[in-house]
Structure formats: structure tokens, C-alpha cells
């Protein structure tokens, strides 16, 4: 994964998550998507679809099972993008 690629994804994710949650939590790489941001499954799926279109990738649902933090989601997207 290239650094710029990962950084670009992280920036996009943080922006989108901030507008989705409207919470006081400062979003960092270690922020837990479910326990800290309380994103419900529908919002999360919509966000994933938006990201997929932005990067022209498909994220397998089973790969999301291992994703808990913003960093893990950014790494997954970056990995899929690099093999695409």
C-alpha cells in the first residue's frame, strides 16, 4: 500500500464519518466504528457503497467482518484498490 493512497483514503473516511455521526468524538485511525461512533448497519452499508464508487472497487462483505476501526477500514480499501 502506498502512503499517499492510504492517507487519501483516511482523509475521505474521516470526513464522511464526521458528517454521518454528528458526534463530538474526534475521529482518528483508532476510532472504533461501532462502539465509538454507533453507526448502524444501514448507514455503514451506505457509506461502504459510496466509498466503493469513489474508488471504483467492490468490498466483499466477508472482508468487513474483520473491520472494527477506521484504520482497519482504510487498510482494507487500500489493499483492494492496490490489487484492482
Amino acid at each position: 500500500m502506498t502512503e499517499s493512497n492510504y492517507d487519501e483514503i483516511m482523509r475521505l473516511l474521516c470526513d464522511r464519518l464526521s458528517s454521518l455521526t454528528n458526534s463530538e468524538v474526534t475521529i482518528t485511525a483508532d476510532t472504533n466504528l461501532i462502539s465509538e461512533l454507533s453507526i448502524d448497519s444501514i448507514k455503514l452499508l451506505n457509506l461502504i457503497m459510496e466509498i466503493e464508487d469513489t474508488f471504483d472497487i467492490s468490498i466483499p462483505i466477508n472482508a468487513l467482518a474483520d473491520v472494527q476501526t477506521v484504520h482497519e477500514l482504510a487498510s482494507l480499501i487500500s489493499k483492494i484498490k492496490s490489487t484492482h
Partner: protein
Amino acid sequence: MNLLEKLDAAAAKRKALLPEGIGAFGIPIEEIYSATEARIGDRRVLLLGTNNYLGLTFSPECIQAAHKALDNEGTGTTGSRMANGSYYGHRALEREFADFYECCAGIVFTTGYQANLGTISGLVGPGDTVLIDGDSHASIFDGCILSGAEIIRFKHNDMVDMEKRLRRLGKRTETTLIIVEGIYSMLGDQAPLAEIVHLKNKYNCALLLDEAHSLGVLGEKGQGLAEKTGLLKEIDFITGTFSKSLCSIGGFCVSNHPQLDQLRYVSHPYIFTASPSPATIASTRAALQLLRNGNELRKQLWRNCTQLYTQLKKTGYTLGPEPGPVIAAILDSPRQALQIWQSLLEHNIYVNLILPPAAPDGKSLVRCSVNAAHTTEQIAYVGDTFEKLFRQVLNS
């Protein structure tokens, strides 16, 4: 949080949606009188929440066949198809399904759930891809999980999204299985099969069509969406269940690929379970004959579907996009849905209540299932009651 505390947390979530004392889930049916009526508590209710689409649960042919099998072959096979559980009836039913669908191969499973679980996990594995509709039934999703294949989801019935995802797969489409359903169980809408077949051929994938809700319902012969659209020969694998139009329990897969037979040796949901009981197989065989000759039943079913759909639509309910045996009123909140469901029961009408996350897009559903045995008067009573509740609940 330990294992039991996790269950407590899940139960608390459920109770927040559905207060104690309201038995919308797992409501006990005390006595069943016919294909359309039963007793719940002290009420004689009209059944509008079963999948008994052709109304065959009490057909004398099916009951007699089951009795005979029970007398002659006993209550159960006590074993797997791989061991001692393969009787003449199982093999005969497989041949009859293959013949019905003009296919060379057929396999019978113990439940409809296992038909999808066993077929999907037998066909694909790690390194392969499954492309599934966003509104897929849990049996499809669980089959995909069990397979270990990569699961890609496309937006429900959205062919632009589906093609986008096929394009993104590149060469991997050669090991991709597309899975769609003839009629979707939540909103009762049908898959755009002609466009799906076009994309399947364009990208060189395989296609599995689950006809669980469309078998017996669509097409002149009742084969389902594949027949209705004239695309039977284009479908690689068709799965379905015995527990809807065929009024028993079990499932099947048919195909024109002779390799289907290999599933008997690799599919755990087929191998590691007892085979269907002789009575189940016998009543299913009788029901399949009735289904094949059931054009009049289908016409009656569709008259009933159209009557109820038209009345609910005219009343102002938001419904799925097309009439069919599954007619779901889409409501904004669980509270509204619960109120309508409860009021319907007080009017002696039993329907299904579906709350988030089971319903699509965070909505709540009050879902009716229409069958061929409902009379015009029964359907009119249901329509009128929905109309009254629309004014009382949704306009209050």
C-alpha cells in the same frame, strides 16, 4: 461482556422494539382448520401470513399419499442420504423435479434453507466470488458465508450497480456465481431476469435462481420466473423449497449441468443431515403433480393478489412495486407497523410483522401472503380492514 451478557443485550434490543406481552414473533397457532383459517388464542382468524400459495395444505391427494408412506415406510429414515437415508421416493422426487424443469439433474435437500446452503457451498469456495442481491434471503447469505467465497452485494434489482460490480471483477467473473430470486420475500417484487441473463452471458458467469416464492406461482406450468420470462435454458442452477406452494418441508436444486451430482459428495448440508421423512417426500410428490396441473389454482391466486394489491394501493398504502402473492405494506416506524399488526389480529386477521433490521432500508413491514384458497369475500374483508386502519392509525 460474556456470552450470556451478549444474549441479554440482544434481548434488550428486541424488547425495546417489541414490548413484553405482544407475541408478534412465534405466535402460537392453537388449531388449524383449513388452508385459510386457524385459531390463535380464543380467536378464529383468517390466515394471511402463510406461504401456502396454492392452498394445498389440506388437499386429499397429499394427505393420502403421506398416510400411505407413513404406514408403509415408517415415520423417518433415521439417516443421511449418503448412508441409509436414500429411499425410492427421494430418488423418484429428484427425477420428477428434473423432468418438471426439463433438466438432466436434480437433488433433494431436507429443508429449503439447506437447499441454498448446500448448493451454494458445494458450487463455490475460497478464491471464487458470489454476486448477490442486496435483499437476498438469509439462506443465500449463509450459504455464501459457509462457502468461503468472496461475497459481493449489488443494490436490490439494480442492473447498473450489478454490471458495475461485474466489470470491477475483471477476469474473476469466470469463477463468479450470480444469485438472484424469482420473487423476493420482503416486498414481493421479481428479479429483472432478462437483464440478469444478458449480463451473466456478457461476463461469462454462472447463474443460480432461487424460485422459493415463485414456484407454482409464476408461469403457465408453475415453474416460476424462469418459465414466465422464457429463460429456463439460460439458468445454470434453480433452487426452491417444498414449504411454500408444495406445502411440506424440504428443498431442491435442478440443473442441466450433470456436474450437479458431485454436490452429493461435497456438500455438508446435504450429507450431514437426516433425509426427508417418507411422508414428507410422498406428500411433496403428490403436491408437485397438483402444481403441474394447477393452472386454475394459479389463476385464482392471481385474481386474489390483484384484488388485495389494488385495494391497498388505492387506500394509500406504500407497497412493493408489483402485485404478487407477497403484498407488504411499507411503514415508516416499528410503532405504526406494530399498531396495524395488532389491530388486524383484533379483527381476526393474521399477517406477518417484519421489523428492522429484517426489513429493507430500515423500514417496517406488515406483510400479507395471499393464496388460491382465499375467497373473494375473505380478501375483500382484509382489504376493508386495512382501509379502516389506514384512517385510524396512519392519519392519526
